[in-house]
């Protein structure tokens, strides 16, 4: 077990209880997240990849039971009391969701949502919190941050909303950023911009990025290591190059083969 | 949750059956006065389970008759209003545009008619009659259904399978009856079930005010009126119909809620 591991997941199992029996979303998952790295998890729908992020953040539904261990810097996260978890969430552990339109509060202006993070976790006064908010908005390349800050989420484009989410995630200078399909809802050209931004942000802040997606192309660009999930199990975990060029698990090979490759102009 | 629904349905069924069968089996009827048995309290042994009313008539039989009448009115009037409401609402929603606006404005006009004076006027013009109750109540309760059905139709129209059906050649009547109405049924059943208690209460209120069912025919409303008049001395006269009314309304509401839950998740896939 590497001492540089910020996050250590051991034997994680997540089970949802339903009226018709139970669903094992994750089964016996082991995973380490090293400081400063970008770990990508790829899987199709139902693979459990989103459940993994929710389990780490303590956001699983009440019908779900998590067993095993998730340690963040030695602190066990499973069954951590809410108050202690609230201190970690948003501050040490941040999350970026897939659909920024539903993840942002439609009734609050952008700057209010940004400054809320600072006020809660950094205990800033309102003016200071807003100043930091504007600063972050500029750092994620939002044009005219003053004007945009006063707008509501629905007035912004998809790409811009995602930048706001990234800014919110960065506010308290987290050690780990979890990203659940951050570019799936975006157009190709905007996706490329956001991926660039995520890379830039990670390098600048030194945070670790745990990125979950169904698109291998995204991981090829950003990830240091890649894990492949299917039906709740982690089938393969390797360095990015190794996974793409010499995959070991047959499912990984299937996934790679199934992606029709674009013959790109030289 | 589902168990409660079954219980509610069971109670309703049982009540309906009783109201049909028991009066036929009993030696007492609902209208013959027996002045020697005036206002007896309920007793297990005396032969009158719920006692008697001021005219010596068995209260249990009267309450069951009242139940029968109330249920009859409720079901017929609800059926009528659902029929009118669905046709009106689906047509308005499907046609859209000007036709929709006109049709819904008519609904608004009806909504603003004060119900009680309306029924009183009808009663004055046409006299007390069971049929009048059907018409009067039906004429007003279709409004809610119409609005809801119109709303559902509007959102259904926007769904992809309607476009797909159009591309597959469906249009006009075929679209409405093959694709829209079947997808409305879930909502309609739920609201129909919830209309019934409203209608029962309407009728009870009307009869209570004296504009409803004519004596000696008993509906729960008239029984309540009689009971209220004699409340101090003989509370059982009020309690019996009140409990029956409460049970009926509660069960229908419960049934409606349960049906809504039962049908919704599958609808939302």
């Amino acid at each position, binding site marked *: 077990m590497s001492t540089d591991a910020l996050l250590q997941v051991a034997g994680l199992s997540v089970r949802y209880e339903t009226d018709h029996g139970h669903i094992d979303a994750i089964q016996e998952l082991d995973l380490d997240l090293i400081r400063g790295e970008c770990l990508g998890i790829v899987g199709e729908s139902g693979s459990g990849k989103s459940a993994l992020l929710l389990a780490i953040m303590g956001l699983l539904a009440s019908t779900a039971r998590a067993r095993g261990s998730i340690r963040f810097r030695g602190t066990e996260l499973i069954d951590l009391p809410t108050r202690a978890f609230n201190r970690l969430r948003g501050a040490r552990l941040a999350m970026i969701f897939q659909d920024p339109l539903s993840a942002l509060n439609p009734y609050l202006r952008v700057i209010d949502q940004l400054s809320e993070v600072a006020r809660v976790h950094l205990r800033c006064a309102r003016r200071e919190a807003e100043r930091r908010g504007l600063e972050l908005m500029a750092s994620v390349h939002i044009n005219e941050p003053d004007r945009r800050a006063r707008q509501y989420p629905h007035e912004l484009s998809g790409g811009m909303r995602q930048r706001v989410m990234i800014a919110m995630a960065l506010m308290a200078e987290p050690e780990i950023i979890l990203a659940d399909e951050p570019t799936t809802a975006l157009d190709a*050209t*905007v996706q490329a911009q956001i991926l660039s931004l995520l890379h830039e942000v990670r390098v600048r802040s030194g945070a670790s990025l745990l990125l979950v997606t*169904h698109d291998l192309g995204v991981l090829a660009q950003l990830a240091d290591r890649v894990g492949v999930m299917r039906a709740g199990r982690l089938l393969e975990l390797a360095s990015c190059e190794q996974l793409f060029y010499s995959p070991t698990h047959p499912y990984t090979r299937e996934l790679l083969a199934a992606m029709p490759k*674009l013959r790109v102009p030289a | 949750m589902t168990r409660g629904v079954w219980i509610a349905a069971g109670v309703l069924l049982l009540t309906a059956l009783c109201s049909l069968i028991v009066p036929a089996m009993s030696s007492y009827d609902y209208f013959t006065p027996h002045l020697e048995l005036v206002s007896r309290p309920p007793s297990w042994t005396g032969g009158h389970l719920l006692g008697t009313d001021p005219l010596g008539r068995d209260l249990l039989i009267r309450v069951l008759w009242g139940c029968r009448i109330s249920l009859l009115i409720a079901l017929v009037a609800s059926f009528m209003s659902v029929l009118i409401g669905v046709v009106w609402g689906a047509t308005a929603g499907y046609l859209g545009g000007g036709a929709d606006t006109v049709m819904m404005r008519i609904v608004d006009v009806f909504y603003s008619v004060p119900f009680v004076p309306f029924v009183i006027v009808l009663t004055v013009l046409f006299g007390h009659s069971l049929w009048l109750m059907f018409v009067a109540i039906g004429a007003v309760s279709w409004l809610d259904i119409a609005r809801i059905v119109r709303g559902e139709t509007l959102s259904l129209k926007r769904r992809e399978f309607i476009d797909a059906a159009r591309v597959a050649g469906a249009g006009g009547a075929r679209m409405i009856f093959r694709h829209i109405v*079947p997808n409305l049924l879930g909502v309609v059943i739920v609201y129909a079930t919830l209309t019934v208690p409203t209608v029962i209460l309407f009728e009870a209120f009307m009869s209570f005010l004296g504009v409803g069912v004519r004596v000696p025919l008993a509906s729960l409303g008239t029984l309540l009126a009689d009971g209220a008049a004699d409340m101090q001395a003989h509370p059982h006269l009020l309690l019996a119909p009140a409990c029956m009314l409460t049970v009926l309304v509660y069960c229908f509401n419960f049934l409606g809620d349960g049906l809504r839950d039962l049908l919704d998740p599958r*609808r939302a*896939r």
Partner: protein
Amino acid sequence: MIDTPLLEVRNLSVSFSVRHAGRTARLPALREIDLSLSRGETLGIVGESGSGKSTLARTLLRLTEAAGGTVRFDGTDLLALKGRSLRRMRARLQMIFQDGGSALDPRQRIGAALEEPLQTLRPEWPADGRDRRVRELLARVGLEPQQADRYPHEFSGGQAQRIGIARALIVEPELVVCDEPLSSLDVSIKAQIAGLLLELKRGLGLSMLFIAHDLPAVQLLSDRVLVLYLGRVMETAGCEALFTRPRHPYTRALLQSAPVPDPRVARSRAVAPIGGELPSALFPPSGCVFRTRCPYAVERCAIELPLPRTVGDSVVACHRAEDVS
């Protein structure tokens, strides 16, 4: 040899009324679209959100009304058709929808859903032959004939899309418009359905309009490709030509933005190819609509609308197409 194109679109414009800032305004979804499709050909249409590609599909299928322009399908004016003649046309021009599951009536068994177009669009089809045809199509798309009695919710996304394909093909159409048929599917299912479409295209000699934002799929299935941006055509070219020698700056940007499952290639172009955001569709930029994000934009681009012209193997709407390298 049939010379007239199967589908010919000239100067097509479509706009919508929207409420904006308390007033009703017109949103130009498509402007002055020209395209043509020959028999047996597949034309891929690519574009991002706001490009108008779905509007194009819906307009061709007469689900949305056009504001101007002409559409000729095998010589007939498609936009002028009404009632019975429109219905007869539907037997020749069909559509595969984006989300297979939503495109099916949840209260209708899929057998009935498949039979419906036969009943309404091909009434001359013998009634006893319909059942056989339904089973034939189910088998053709890789489903079992017994499944005709099931309801849509009993199928997975991929299977539902197969049903959608079967329904589009059951009336023996000449042209099939595919509106993002792969977008709602998982990666491995996407590959299967793309393969199915390719096989059907070849086996039935279908003419297709393949609309997607997924470039590799377009490359796989199309003979020619058309690129849309904010309601206007940017470039039209043969498939090979467009993907290897794109002439329009937007096409280049689009190709460079596509995520590539190859780390070495992906990291060699770590910087985003273009910045900026899509301008508001209500107030599109003057002149060339792409100029606000184009690295090659000059003054002329804001003043003069670039008309489509031939440059190399492509038809491009760009003043500086020759300089794009």
